[in-house]
């Protein structure tokens, strides 16, 4: 019976990674949910927008690195982030102008916008590969760990190590800041309230003197910022590869839905649910149980509910179950 080791093992392999991954998903899902709530469609181009934002940031990071500028223990990419955000904002506004605005003015049904976003997705897919290529790009620098497993073991004297990467710490911290800012913005500022009003009732917003184009513009800019931050954090923590960002679309989408589409709070909760269900349901409990059980009882098998092959399937399964019991998502979204 060794509770401490068991806890540390669990934290190291389940909790810390799931929290970081959940934060990344949450940031992405926030963007999905904002577009759904305010612009009223599910944006299939979201994953590729993330890739684009990360790409611009990477290019800027390389520029800075070439100049010899760095942030010490923190990744240089943080310095380049504003450039990435700006670049993505510009792209989003251009795309909106060239593509979405037309349909908005036509009062096109949202489903047309969904399909249009599919078209945008294809094009962004091409653009990103065109500029930076399809390969893995490494742009992380600075200190790798807040706490490394080895240090932790030496410090605590336990068998198990606990590692927390700088990027993981950054991810969680940035997510908290972004979410707090977003909530403050939506709940307290005039512009934020006007966005909520627009999302609630477009016609009446117009009749109240709210400029819809401005709301849309601000939305795209916030979404651009969120996606870029999410894309960069993800890239720092794992790696940047355009194709991965496309695949990220599904879990982000799932997070937004399970939390209740249109609800920012739901998006965050959804991100963590998806992340934790991916990591925990397929976790092999052998090690943890090995610490907890007296030796003769220690399991010889893996004590794994399902093999990790099914982790993706499992998270979708959980999603469907949540929807069965809460048909509008955890936090009743705009979906009723």
């Amino acid at each position, binding site marked *: 019976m060794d509770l401490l080791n068991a806890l540390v093992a669990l934290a190291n392999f389940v909790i810390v990674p799931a929290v970081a991954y959940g934060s990344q998903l949450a940031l992405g899902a926030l963007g999905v949910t904002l577009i759904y709530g305010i612009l009223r469609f599910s944006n299939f181009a979201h994953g590729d927008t993330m890739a684009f934002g990360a790409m611009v940031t990477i290019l800027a990071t390389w520029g800075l690195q070439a100049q010899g500028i760095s942030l010490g223990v923190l990744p240089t990419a943080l310095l380049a982030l504003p450039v990435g955000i700006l670049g993505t904002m510009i792209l989003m506004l251009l795309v909106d102008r060239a593509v979405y605005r037309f349909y908005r003015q036509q009062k096109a049904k949202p489903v047309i916008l969904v399909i249009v976003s599919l078209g945008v997705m294809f094009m962004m897919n091409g653009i990103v590969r065109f500029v930076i290529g399809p390969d893995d790009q*490494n742009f992380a620098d600075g200190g790798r760990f807040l706490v490394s497993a080895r240090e932790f073991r030496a410090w605590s004297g336990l068998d198990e190590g606990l590692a927390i990467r700088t990027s993981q710490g950054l991810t969680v911290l940035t997510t908290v800041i972004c979410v707090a800012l977003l909530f403050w913005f939506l709940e307290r500022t005039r512009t934020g309230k006007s966005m909520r009003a627009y999302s609630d009732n477009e016609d009446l917003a117009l009749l109240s003197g709210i400029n819809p184009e401005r709301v849309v513009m601000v939305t795209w800019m916030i979404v651009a910022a969120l996606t870029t931050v999410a894309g960069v954090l993800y890239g720092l923590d794992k790696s940047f590869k355009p194709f991965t960002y496309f695949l990220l679309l599904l879990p982000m989408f799932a997070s937004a839905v399970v939390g209740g589409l249109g609800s920012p709070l739901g998006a965050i909760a959804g991100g963590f649910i998806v992340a934790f269900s991916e990591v925990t349901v397929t976790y092999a409990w052998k090690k943890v149980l090995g610490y907890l059980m007296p030796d003769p009882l220690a399991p010889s098998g893996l004590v794994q509910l399902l093999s990790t092959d099914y982790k993706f399937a499992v998270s979708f399964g959980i999603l469907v179950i949540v929807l069965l019991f809460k048909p509008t998502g955890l936090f009743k979204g705009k979906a009723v």
Partner: protein
Amino acid sequence: AQEVKLGILVGFTGPIESLAEPMAKGAELAIKEVSDSGALLDGATVTPVRADTGCIDNGLATSNAERLIADGVAGIIGGDCSGVTGAVLQNVAIPNGMVMISPSATSPGLSTVEDNDLFFRTAPSDAREGQVMTEVLQDRGIESIALTYTNNDYGKGLADAIKTNFEAAGGEVTISAAHEDGKADYSAEVGALASAGGDILVVAGYLDQGGLGIIRAALDSGAFDTFGLPGGMIGDSLPANVGPDLNGSFGQIAGSGGEGIEKLTAMAGDAFDATSPYTPESYDAAALFMFAMQAAGSTDPAEYGPKILEVANAPGEQIFPGELAKGLEILKSGGEIDYVGASAVELIGPGESAGSYREIEVQDGKNVTVKFR
């Protein structure tokens, strides 16, 4: 003089899009070398024609293969991933009597496929790598391994081969878990692998795909310190990406001697990364085509096909990258060659690389060849 076209059918888009470009470049380098030399078939020019397989898109791959054939190619270098390679072989190459030399399809299943002697590969079957890896592990006194593989026919076949061989040799495989390439997060996999434990973690994946992600996550969380690296994981970018923590990890990749690959690296210069997986094999596949044509004096697949094994294997003078013209001259004058190329080509059995391997160890952030097997 004659114009000869060679098709390069690899996955420029899709999950291995990052490997495809150097592979194509490798093949094109050989083609250019020959074409410039004017030594093939009385000064024939050789031109490459690229086509995409999407790596996993059977429909796209077969129609592009058809297109290549309609274009009048005399041979196809490709496909890349075992799945589409099988599809192209069955649906295009065999019906059209076209020869394919794949630089990278390594699935053991392809060894026994009914191919009417039209299919060759410069990469060895994964079945062989399983044996070699077991030897390496045993020599290093490793008793138990955790095993993870990229979830496709390559990864699965390789993992099965390693597992069977290693267990037959008395080792223990604590877990054999798949990982999908390009997925967002590998915490779940690493968690399971760590829980299962083992002396080292063998990663049968791709170095810039899920394999890298797994190694990073495993190192970061302190789950494993040493890794076993089969061929798909050997490349300069891995130690560069992972950093000093990788020192001490080891593995093996098809190839003999450093000479061939070094020459190719020098020739490639900055144009592309010659050590990228399956790039030397691509160069060699292209070279084999042209040697066989020269030996047969024809670009008709039916005629040069049977010559491929002859030019690839002893007896004859050894030919390395950069010496293609020399080889062609020898063949022209009726001599014999034993093409070694960049990946130590030695075709056995049904026309696949025999599989001599370099044992690699990461030392000081570099892949160092410590032994040949």
